């Protein structure tokens, strides 16, 4: 009898206690905070900073030229499919860190030699992975203050300088942005380099922006980049991205520029038709004048209409651009929806400093695996600009079901007092939760492990997820840059493009991450770079899948 009474208490008393505890802990100050800031209804992941423990001791620093830059390339350099890191150092040497993390465990990296001379690895501002020679081994494009480098990957995290063999003139510019695309019918990629201030120009730095460059591969079987096309005028570019903004199948080059130094400049969009020189979209084409301190582009198709949206970081407001009703497939008119979606991120969300923020790298990812895109923005004062916030924590804007975003950087634990620059979200320990690496100016690199709803000692998953790698074996562009991957869960479709570029001096290659929410399965379709669609691949959640073009079924990949 007493057993039965005790059991009844479990049904009736425990809820009562839970309710009482909830009422008691809801203090006035918390209630006040809640009125000031919206809470995320979507789950907020916890991030644990563990760079030092992970063996990632690295600093990006240097004089004025390194106020910008500070990028990281995230890619697999040794064929084990785990994302490794190539981190810019500014006046310090850039360094390559091999990922030794155990699946699901703490993060671990080992510094490893690259095979490139130390001297070449100084003055590095950023880097992007790309397999420019189609050998199915990721190569690196390294942005420098001075000669840019094309580093051919040889496997086992070894590289060789390929500038000379590829007839590539690395230049002497201050390069701060990069993007690449395989143009239709091309065997090798077209490379675009964004340059910042021309320090040798009269009156520099004010009004002295360098032209940007496009390298198209020479005709012929061997890869050569002997010819350079100038994108002139340049407006002190800090981010660029080849993007199929109008579903034409012909990516254009979006360029984000820093108004701090240009005069009469603006954000730019260049058309690149195969075999023809680049042509800027102008007012007569519908392109609207926009001046921002453009630092980093992030692109995703939020409403899955085939026309990507673009987040543009700046000083003060972040922009979020969506094609306007006035636009059509030849008229790129954008409107800013940042305010209505809650992503302006214009000033620090925590602390006492109410001066405007300074945004750098930005990236759409799904950090809680709920199937909604989230937006990460690296933040940090340029150096000591008095009109801008000194304490300027990074943003983690969690996507909500009402299409808005809610700031959660402090709740997630990424609100460090560091000046963020380049960054990247990737699943370093292959547990299905995206981790975060942030390159900070004159401060250690931050490395956050995403422990989901748990703790460092006991990580807990959030929603279901899928890692997708697509390949085109035996043909040019083996990693299918320019492809679109479409994941269908129920009535919803989530799409993302395989791209090289964007962000702030930081790029990545490897598994494309999708949050699946409560779906335990999904259908994946791929629009290959030549425009043809695959059939639907039926896959189950919480796996890494590999889709080789032409395969009937996806393969699975296991980290252990």
């Amino acid at each position, binding site marked *: 009898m007493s*057993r*039965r009474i*005790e*059991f*009844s*208490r*479990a*049904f*009736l*008393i*425990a*809820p*009562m206690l*839970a*309710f009482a505890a*909830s009422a008691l802990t809801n203090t006035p100050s918390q209630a006040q905070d809640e009125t000031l800031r919206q809470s995320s*209804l*979507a*789950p907020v992941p916890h991030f644990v900073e563990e760079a030092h423990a992970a063996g990632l001791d690295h600093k990006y620093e240097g004089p004025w030229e390194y106020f910008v830059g500070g990028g990281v390339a995230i890619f697999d350099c040794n*064929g*084990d*499919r785990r994302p490794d890191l190539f981190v810019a150092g500014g006046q310090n040497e850039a360094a390559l860190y091999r990922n030794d993390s155990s699946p699901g465990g703490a993060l671990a990296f080992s510094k490893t030699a690259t095979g490139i001379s130390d001297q070449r690895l100084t003055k590095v501002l950023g880097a992007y992975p790309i397999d420019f020679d189609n050998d199915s081994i990721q190569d690196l494009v390294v942005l420098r203050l001075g000669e840019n480098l094309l580093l051919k990957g040889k496997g086992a995290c070894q590289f060789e300088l390929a500038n000379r063999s590829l007839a590539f003139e690395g230049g002497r510019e201050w390069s701060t942005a990069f993007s690449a695309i395989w143009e239709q019918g091309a065997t090798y990629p077209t490379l675009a380099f964004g340059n910042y201030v021309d320090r040798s120009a009269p009156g520099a730095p004010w009004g002295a922006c360098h032209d940007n460059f496009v390298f198209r591969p020479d005709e012929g079987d061997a890869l050569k980049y002997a010819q350079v096309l100038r994108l002139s005028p340049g407006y002190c570019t800090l981010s660029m991205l080849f993007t199929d903004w109008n579903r034409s199948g012909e990516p254009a080059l979006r360029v984000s520029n820093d108004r701090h130094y240009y005069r009469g400049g603006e954000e730019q969009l260049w058309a690149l038709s195969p075999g023809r020189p680049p042509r800027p979209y102008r007012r007569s084409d519908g392109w609207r004048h926009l001046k921002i301190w453009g630092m980093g582009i992030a692109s995703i198709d939020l409403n899955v209409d085939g026309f990507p949206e673009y987040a543009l970081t700046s000083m003060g407001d972040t922009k979020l651009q969506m094609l306007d009703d006035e636009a059509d497939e030849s008229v790129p008119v954008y409107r800013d929806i940042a305010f209505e979606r809650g992503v302006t991120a214009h000033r620090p969300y925590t602390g006492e400093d109410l001066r405007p923020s300074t945004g750098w790298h930005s990236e759409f990812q799904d950090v809680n*695996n*709920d199937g909604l895109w989230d937006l990460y923005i690296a933040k940090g004062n340029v150096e000591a600009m008095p009109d801008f916030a000194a304490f300027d924590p990074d943003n983690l804007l969690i996507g*909500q*079901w*009402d299409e808005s975003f809610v700031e959660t950087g402090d709740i997630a634990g990424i609100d460090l007092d560091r000046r963020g620059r380049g960054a990247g979200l990737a699943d370093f320990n292959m547990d299905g939760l995206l981790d975060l690496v942030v390159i900070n100016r004159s401060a250690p690199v931050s490395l956050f492990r995403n422990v989901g*709803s*748990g703790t460092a000692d006991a990580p*807990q*998953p*959030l*929603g*279901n997820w899928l890692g997708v790698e697509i390949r085109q074996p035996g043909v040019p562009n083996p990693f299918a840059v320019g492809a679109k991957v479409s994941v269908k*869960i*129920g*009535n919803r479709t989530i799409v993302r493009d395989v791209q090289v570029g964007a962000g702030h001096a930081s790029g990545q290659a490897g598994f494309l991450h999708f949050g*699946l*929410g*409560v*779906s*335990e*399965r999904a259908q994946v379709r791929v629009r290959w770079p030549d425009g043809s669609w695959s059939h639907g691949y*039926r*896959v*189950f*959640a*919480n*796996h890494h899948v*590999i889709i080789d073009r032409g395969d*009937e*079924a996806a*393969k*699975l*990949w*296991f*980290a*252990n």
Partner: protein
Amino acid sequence: MARPFTLTVGSFLSALVLGSSAFAGGTGFNPWDERVIREGIDYDALANDPEFSLEALRDKGKELFEGRFIKDEGAGRPNATQAIVPTKRRRPAGHMFLRLSGLDANSCQSCHAMPVSGGAGDFTANVFVSEGFESADFDTTDPQFSNERGTNHLMGAGLIELLAREMTADLRAQRSKAVVAARENGQAVTLQLETKGVSFGVLTAQPDGLVETSGLEGIDSDLTLRPFGQKGVFGSLRQFTVNALNQHSGMQPAERYGVAWTGTADFDGDGVDNEISIGQVSAMVAYQATLPAPGRKTPLPDIWVEAAKHGEHLFSEAGCASCHRPSLPLESLVFQDPNPFETAGTLRPSDVTTALKLDLGTLDWVKALPKDDQGRTLVPLFGDLKRHRIADAARDTLGNELLSQRFVARDVFLTAELWGVGNTAPYGHRGDLTTLHEVIDAHGGEATEARKAYTALPENDRQAILAFLKSLEIAE
């Protein structure tokens, strides 16, 4: 504590409000109150209760399983479809109930009732299975919109799920071993997957961690054995319960349809928040997991005993037992709720601090089951928990669906477990075959040889097989 879903407060508040009734006495409810949900069930308190009573939880689950949910407590889903992934309707439902796309029941027992609560359903209890995404509000029996299915019984379902869990764990361990071996040796490893004597085809692990799954048979590529539903597409009683509560009754469990995964506590827009808590789902799971397994009909006249004995022998001889395996061995009788292989949207072990453990070994009917020489409980399911192609051009009766379900082809079904087949007619996945002979004769595809062996038998031997099958009954 249960991490993201501490959702007992709403129910508790309801209880407080009702407590003001002049007639309610100490219960908070009038004796004639039509509500099914009369109290919160706190999962954490249960999981941490040193004097936890399986019987008491089962009784609570029985009330929920058999109760007729009403609108005031959340029955109905005016703005949500039947889909297992929360999906909004394009327009509000015009009807509270609609026999085809739902609601088609306001109680689990309204279908699972034959011959006892938790049992099977007659043709009148057929369900029209649709993914619930496109054309979710279909109002026709046209098979291009839904698959019509009979209601399976749930007797012994706890043991079925435990078998599936052990088989999943075993198959995944084999896969891991192959991946490690391929990596270590630098050579591909091709593996014949087999667990509890049931083969599931082959997989090949490459040295770089890639696994090719195109050689798998009868199981999904993630090697999760899903033993529920006619197609074998649901992995656990809990997952099925969450699905079914929404589909059939419009009662939306918070663990999938709540704020965390939909942004609202009232996804179906019926004005009731968090309609079913994790504790309440656990109670329903406990009820279903403890339903006694079917047994053998007793007493039987000698002539039937003799015929059944002969028929059981012939059943095996004819090859029927190669899929309808008389028993599968079960190592552990502890039913952990939630299932260790659950994914987001159904409560997972990672969502709770302490998992509820139901020791089915304490139940008398489980104690009575035979054990093998390794001490394993022999679960007499007459099945293999594997999917097979059961129809072909020559025998297409069981391939009469147009829609594949959750990646499973239209003519592939889970081997029907035959325990209880004696008193759960009609037969076939549509419940449209009136006799055991008819359903045996409908077997095609992989069962062709066994069916031919049966039909080639003399009439007396066929009768003996039927005598055996008719003896496999759910006790009343």
